[in-house]
Every structure is written in structure tokens, then in C-alpha cells.
């Protein structure tokens, strides 16, 4: 089965779709392993961006001229593409935002401010990115809500028994990451959602890391909100999505004023537009939204299951190879992981590791990965993280291993 899947993707051919990969860094061919931060963009996506600016740049929704019509149609076609990608029931459930962080803030500020009150409890997890911690802390401070945290075990998996203990009729909101950016852990979000719904809580899933690796179906998950970022989907930066169930979005107040979110304005009163426009104040990121459709089509063309199989193959290979290095400890050994491998080297600072790998043309991420509480849980200041995308190869993993041997030789 594994080999059948491998033959379906010609990685060398795929690499040619990503012009940025064909370059030397510090005299060596670039190895790009910082995909969890952002992945690279295929030519088709880059062309979609320039195609808009060269061909039909216009502000959308209100123009009556040809270019405005064309831009509006492309923009809304992207919304339908995202709807299909997430299997949302209604196109109105797809809100364009600036990214996952922006989407989470929208929910915290709009839903949270309207519906949460003093004493209500919000549950997040130890492995949240700061962007799924801070908006809730801000809300708790403002409204007097209480933040509770699901702990993780030594393998880097959420302890579901502890989660169940945290749940009660006081739990009003649960916000949890689908896939950990630091550890690669895939969380059992369906179980998390079902258990939260059983006590009447509303659930947001942070899908920033999950979206390019896993099949997503917000209806099957029964997620109330799902947040993601386009730049982690082979799409452009500064553009994200908030999925929300229609009835929830309808009940929420807009949290930014101006532009398309308005139905009618008088100095006495303003009435708001319908969803999704109610939440899309101002001129949106038109080119980037349009290019998202291209990114989704690109992924669909490769087949998401093929991408996942290839990345899983790389993860297994990298785990085996890295485990052979003396003094290397992998942080996060969950049974269910996607292509992220985080590790520490005995006696070597992660920053030094990153610098010396960079000098060998290998791009990794080092530090706390905006998950400081998780690092504290493991008693470390940070890790070195290699994260994979569809265009990465086993040869590149070998380069990483050689690079790390060089780091150890230099430092120890």
C-alpha cells in the first residue's frame, strides 16, 4: 500500500512547481524544513496573484464595471472552494480573515463578549499556540471567565481523562488545536467536540497546522468554529478563514466596523449586513483570497491522501534516522502525528543548532514555537523543529542528519 501511494507522486516533478526551492543557500542546495511556519507556494498560486493584479484588479461587491464583476466572481468562487474544502453546509459559513490568529480573535471578541459571562469556564490545552491562549486570557480578564487547561502526557498527547474532569455545566467554550505546531500531535478533536457538546459548550478548533495534512470535514466533526491560515495551505500569507455554524454566526455581533459589513448607516443607527459580510469589514485581501482557490486546487490535484502519505513516510524515515544520533531526544512522540519532528540535542543550544544548519543551507525553526507553556511542561527552553511538506525528500532528511552531525562535531 505504502509503495502504491509513493508511486502516485513524482516529488521531483512537484519540486519544479516551487521555483523558490531551486536555489543555493550558503553554497549548498536549499533544504526547506520550516513548513510548519509557512510552506512554499507553487507557480500556479503565484500566477493567480499576479493574474489578478495584471488582469482584473478592482474592488469587489459594489463596482458595476467589468473588472469589479470579474474580481467579485473570483473572490466569491474562492469562498465556495473553501466551503467545499471544509465541507461546510453553507457558503455563508466561510468568513475570510487575516489568518488563524485573526479568526480566533474574532470568535473571542464577538462570540465571547456577547455570550460569555463572569464565572463561565473556557477550556484550552497545554499545547496551544499563543494565539489560542492570549485571546482567551484577554476575554477572561474582561469578562471574569475562568481559563482551564487540558494537560499533556510525556508523549505529547492530551490526557482525555483530565479533560473530562474539567468539563462541567460551567464549561461554556472549548478551544483546542487540531494538530500541535510544536510536536506534530494530532488531537482527537471529534472526541473533544462531542464531550464539550455533551455539557453544552461551544467548540473552536485551531486548524492552522492540520489543514494541509488532514482531510477536513467540519460537518462530520460537528465543529462550531474552525480556524485556518492560507499560507500553511500552499496559499498566500495574510489570509485566513473562519468557519462557523450559520446559527452561531447569525447570533454574533460584528466586531469591526466599516465597509462591506454595513447594510445601512445613519447617524442614528447602523444596520449590519448578513453573514459572511457582517464579519468582513473594509476592503478584503482580494488577490490573496482569490489565490486560495488555486492553492486548494493544487492540493486537490496532488490528492490530499497522497500528500499525507508522503509526509508520513518522511516523518517515519526522519524519526528513524534522527533517533540514531547520540544525544538527540525527540520531543513529542504521540501515536498519531503529522510531519513535524521537534528535538533537543544534549549540551547544544537550539539557536546554535539552527544557525549552523542554516550555514549548511538547511532551514529549520528553533525556539519555543510560540508555545511557551508547552515548553515549560517539558522543562525545556525550546527545540529545533523540522517540518515537512509535499516537496520534501528523504535525501533532504539525510542532509539534516549530516548537518546535525556537523553541529555536534563543532559544539561538543
Amino acid at each position: 500500500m505504502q509503495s502504491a501511494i509513493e508511486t502516485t507522486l513524482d516529488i521531483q516533478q512537484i519540486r519544479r512547481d516551487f521555483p523558490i526551492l531551486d536555489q543555493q543557500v550558503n553554497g549548498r542546495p536549499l533544504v526547506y524544513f520550516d513548513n510548519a511556519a509557512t510552506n512554499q507556494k507553487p507557480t500556479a498560486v503565484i500566477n493567480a496573484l499576479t493574474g489578478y493584479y495584471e488582469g482584473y484588479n478592482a474592488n469587489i461587491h459594489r463596482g458595476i464595471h467589468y473588472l469589479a464583476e470579474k474580481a467579485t466572481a473570483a473572490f466569491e468562487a474562492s469562498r465556495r472552494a473553501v466551503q467545499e474544502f471544509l465541507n461546510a453546509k453553507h457558503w455563508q459559513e466561510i468568513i475570510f480573515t487575516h489568518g488563524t490568529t485573526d479568526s480566533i480573535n474574532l470568535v473571542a471578541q464577538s462570540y465571547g463578549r456577547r455570550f460569555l459571562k463572569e464565572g463561565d469556564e473556557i477550556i484550552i490545552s497545554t499545547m496551544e499556540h499563543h494565539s489560542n491562549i492570549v485571546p482567551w486570557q484577554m476575554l477572561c480578564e474582561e469578562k471574569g471567565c475562568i481559563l482551564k487547561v487540558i494537560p499533556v502526557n510525556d508523549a505529547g498527547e492530551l490526557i482525555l481523562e483530565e479533560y473530562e474532569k474539567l468539563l462541567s455545566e460551567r464549561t461554556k467554550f472549548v478551544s483546542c488545536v487540531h494538530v500541535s505546531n510544536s510536536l506534530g500531535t494530532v488531537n482527537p478533536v471529534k472526541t473533544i467536540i462531542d464531550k464539550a457538546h455533551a455539557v453544552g459548550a461551544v467548540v473552536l478548533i485551531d486548524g492552522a497546522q492540520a489543514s494541509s495534512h488532514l482531510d477536513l470535514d467540519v460537518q462530520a466533526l460537528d465543529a462550531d468554529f474552525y480556524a485556518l491560515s492560507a499560507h500553511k495551505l500552499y496559499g498566500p500569507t495574510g489570509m485566513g478563514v473562519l468557519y462557523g455554524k450559520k446559527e452561531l454566526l447569525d447570533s454574533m455581533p460584528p466586531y469591526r466596523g466599516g465597509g462591506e459589513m454595513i447594510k445601512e448607516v445613519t447617524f442614528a443607527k447602523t444596520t449590519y449586513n448578513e453573514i459572511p459580510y457582517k464579519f468582513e469589514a473594509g476592503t478584503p485581501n482580494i488577490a490573496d483570497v482569490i489565490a486560495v482557490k488555486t492553492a486548494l486546487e493544487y492540493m486537490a490535484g496532488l490528492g490530499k491522501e497522497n500528500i499525507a502519505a508522503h509526509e508520513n513516510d518522511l516523518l517515519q524515515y526522519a524519526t528513524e534516522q534522527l533517533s540514531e544520533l547520540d544525544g538527540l531526544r525527540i520531543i513529542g512522540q504521540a501515536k498519531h502525528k503529522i510531519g513535524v519532528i521537534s528535538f533537543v540535542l544534549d549540551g547544544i543550544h537550539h539557536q546554535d543548532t539552527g544557525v549552523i544548519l542554516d550555514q549548511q543551507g538547511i532551514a529549520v525553526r528553533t525556539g519555543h514555537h510560540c508555545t511557551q507553556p508547552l515548553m515549560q511542561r517539558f522543562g525545556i527552553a525550546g527545540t529545533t523543529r523540522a517540518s515537512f511538506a509535499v516537496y520534501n525528500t528523504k535525501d533532504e532528511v539525510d542532509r539534516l542528519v549530516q548537518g546535525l552531525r556537523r553541529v555536534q562535531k563543532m559544539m561538543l
Partner: protein
Amino acid sequence: MTINEKQDEIIEEFDLFEDQLDKTQYIIDLGKKLPPMPDSKKTDENRIMGCQSKVWVDAELKDDDQTGARLYFYGDSEQTAQISKGLVGLLIRVLSGEKPEDIANADLYFIPRVGMGNLITSLRAGGLASMIERMKAFGRAYTEKTV
């Protein structure tokens, strides 16, 4: 040796290496030679902010009858952060034992000239600029005291 003579000497040493990795190795080795700072000096007050790794710098003014007041620097990093330690070592080599006003006014041209460009940019968040700023601040503070 003046600050600039020391800088020129360092530039010459680094010119011996063509490969970036060899230059980095040299910095690491300089760090290994740096005498450790006593733990009592590794205080929050002496900590350089803006470093991904922990780095401390302290200074002491010593009066020399012949040459007047000179400022001596001590620095260290957390044990594993050897590149940071090496960079502190390099700065100490250039600035330590000099007159406070010379330190305050030093033009540290050796940094772009040693061809560590990529190392420096990688560490830009790592606080090299903060280290330099701290050492110059010591220079300024002691200039006022000694003038």
C-alpha cells in the same frame, strides 16, 4: 593595542577562513576560551535582553596610574549557547581594557567585515546589537564618572 588595531587583527584572522562554518567554529572556540563569569554576576541586571539564549555582561573600571581609567568587561552565556558566548568573547576582546570614552565612541566595523554576515543576521534576534549597546552604555556611564 587600540580598538581599531584589535578589529583589524580579527578581520585578518577571519580572512584565513573561506567557509562560513569554519568561521563559526572559530567563534565557538573563542567562546570556549572565555573565562566563566561567577554565578553571582549572572544577575537579571547584567542580563542582555533580546537574546534567545541567556547572555550576561558586566564591567569594572580599573585605574591605571600610567594610562588612566580603563574599563574591563566580563561576559558569559548559558552553558550550551556557545555561539553567543563566542560573540561576547569577540566583543570583549575588542573593547575590554580600553578607555570608557573610546568604548562609547567605538565604530565596530569589524562585524560586517569579518564575513559572518549570515551568522549575524541569524542572530539578529539573538541580541548582538543589544550586547554592543550594553557595552557602549557602560562606556558612556563611566566616561561621565571619569571626566
